């Protein structure tokens, strides 16, 4: 009996110490990790979809709250504004859509007058060689100049209908945010 109690106590103590230290380290690394993901994943996409700005969209990024997640915590969206002088003439923001294998992240550039500037795929796990073609310029270029008040219509990639739809869904989500939170964004 004493052995069992000792086992339980020791194992619980080790697990508790491990949990405590990990939560502290998680808190300490949260900021740098967020910075790194923005720098390596978002920055190339932001630079692709925005042009002609004279500020640093990464440094000027702001966060807006776009609703609550399943656990009731605020869901934040990062906005990358492109400015000329003091005026924000376009923004880049990320939308997500369900592809063939999980979510596709798409950085969408939207101008103040309601046009899609360009899109860039930030994250996807689509089938290499088939669904992954949605990241090709020949596909993403179709979104250039489309008005945001209509559902975007583009030619899907043959054999990759789900992936193409996923991208359109992601773009629609981002556009939806722009329409809904226009005041906060621009």
């Amino acid at each position: 009996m004493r052995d069992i109690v000792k086992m339980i106590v020791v194992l619980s103590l080790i697990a508790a110490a491990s949990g405590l230290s990990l939560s502290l380290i998680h808190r300490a690394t949260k900021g740098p990790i967020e910075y790194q993901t923005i720098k390596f994943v978002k920055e190339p996409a932001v630079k692709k979809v925005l042009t002609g700005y004279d500020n640093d969209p990464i440094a000027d990024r702001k966060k807006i709250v776009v609703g609550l997640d399943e656990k009731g915590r605020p869901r934040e969206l990062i906005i990358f504004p492109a400015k000329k002088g003091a005026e924000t003439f376009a923004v880049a923001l990320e939308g997500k859509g369900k592809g063939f294998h999980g979510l596709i992240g798409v950085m969408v550039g939207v101008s103040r007058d309601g046009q899609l500037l360009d899109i860039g795929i930030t994250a996807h796990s689509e089938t290499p060689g088939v669904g992954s073609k949605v990241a090709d310029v020949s596909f993403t270029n179709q979104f250039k100049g489309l008005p945001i008040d209509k559902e975007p219509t583009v030619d899907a990639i043959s054999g990759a209908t789900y992936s193409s739809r996923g991208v359109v869904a992601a773009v629609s989500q981002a556009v939806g945010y722009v329409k809904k939170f226009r005041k906060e964004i621009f």
Partner: protein
Amino acid sequence: MSITSEFSKGLWKTIPPFRLVLGLCPTLAVTTSGINGIGMGMATTFVLIFSNLFVSLLRNFIPRQVRIASFIVIIASFVVIVELVMQAYFYQLFKVLGIFIPLIVVNCIILGRAEAFASKHGPVVSLADGLGIGLGFTLSLFVLGCIRELLGSGSILGIYVMWSSFEPFAFMLKPPGAFVALGILLALMNLISHHQARKGG
């Protein structure tokens, strides 16, 4: 059983993965370039040093029946620390090593050293053992990575060194190439050991 001998045995006598043929999964998977080998080796060394230290400090406190579970909790904690720190400060390396960082938890070398060495010895020698084995592992991965990088993409540490008409063996960057390179290195090491043993008597 001095500290220096515990340290240096990891560098040749029991160098993983050649002598202790353990931890082959990360060895074969990530050694497509020298730098990846170093990254993986350093991450493993860090985990190995700290898991050995903590297992050794707690060795009289952990009941025998739950020792494996306790060791795994300790090892897993350090692996998560490595993963978070790497993600925060070495993001590009983190992206390349990806899934193989969490898999350090089940690397046999680490649990093997905890069970076979650290749980029976004091903290200082365990630290020396972890450092030795870890550096040996890093060295092996680096050598293997360099050979595969040289033959598979014609460069060493990202700098192209082969002549211009050199046709890279793409095979060497694929998993079978890892087996071939590992096998040849193992054979070479055995040849040297044989030679030494014969000379010695």
